[in-house]
């Protein structure tokens, strides 16, 4: 089924926009209330545990967005339907923001909890590489002037990067078991109590709504950019 983007689709997305924005803000307000006020501070970590409520959803969505990006590029290669290319370009920046947020909040969370701003274990290194994969995808598309070519090249690189992430995770894990740096394995998160699950769940929903809202805004933006590129050629 060849999905073509028609004007009434765009009108529908445009009309849904205010509701989505309202829902995102509403979800974030409830999430903030729960994470900052309602949930109890952790026994060991104290109030710094609250950073988890924004760090964990960011990390989840950073990875999920890259999977959607790579999957969309694969589907674009197979079907050549331009819809998938537009989807990939619209979520790339959102994924980059989420990756950056998870790196920064994770670093700030790590300092009081485990004493270090950063540690070179498999997960954190993979997140850093993921950030550079997003940067590569976004800037490569801008660097190549022939946009047909640019789409193909950045899609190919997104797929190669997707293959690279498990390789790097495996490599760094393997290196760490060999070299035994001092402070790593304490980074496993403790088992989560239900009073903490609720704020986490609400913040996850809020981040998801944010992802959908901004992706749809960027979707319209990318469509207009494409039209302007076509009319200027």
């Amino acid at each position: 089924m060849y999905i073509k983007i028609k004007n009434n689709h765009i009108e529908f997305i445009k009309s849904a926009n205010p509701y989505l924005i309202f829902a995102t803000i509403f979800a974030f307000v409830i999430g903030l209330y729960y994470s900052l006020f309602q949930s109890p501070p952790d026994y060991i970590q104290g109030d710094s545990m609250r950073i988890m409520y924004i760090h964990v959803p960011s990390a989840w969505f950073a990875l999920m967005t890259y999977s959607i990006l790579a999957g969309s590029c694969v589907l674009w290669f197979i079907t050549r339907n331009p819809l998938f290319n537009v989807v990939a370009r619209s979520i790339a920046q959102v994924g980059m923001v989420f990756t950056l947020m998870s790196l920064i909040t994770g670093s700030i969370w790590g300092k009081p909890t485990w004493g270090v701003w950063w540690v070179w274990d498999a997960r954190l290194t993979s997140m850093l590489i993921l950030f550079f994969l997003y940067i590569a995808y976004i800037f490569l598309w801008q660097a190549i002037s022939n946009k047909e070519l640019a789409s193909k090249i950045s899609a190919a690189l997104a797929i190669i990067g997707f293959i690279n992430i498990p390789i790097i995770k495996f490599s760094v894990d393997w290196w760490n078991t060999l070299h035994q740096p001092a402070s790593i394995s304490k980074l496993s998160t403790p088992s989560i109590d239900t009073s903490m699950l609720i704020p986490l769940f609400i913040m996850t929903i809020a981040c998801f709504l944010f992802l959908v809202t901004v992706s749809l805004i960027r979707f319209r933006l990318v469509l207009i950019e494409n039209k302007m590129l076509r009319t200027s050629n």
Partner: protein
Amino acid sequence: MNELLDMGGYAIFVWSSYGIFFFSLVTFFLINILNLRKYEKIFNKTKKKID
């Protein structure tokens, strides 16, 4: 209220991370929606001129 601001001694960490998070999200959202409005205006203007 004091307890909220103090966050059990971790105030600077919690508030800076929440602050950076929401600041970045809001900024990113505003950049995109302002760009969208700008381009839609330009596009509609040229479309009207063509029609």
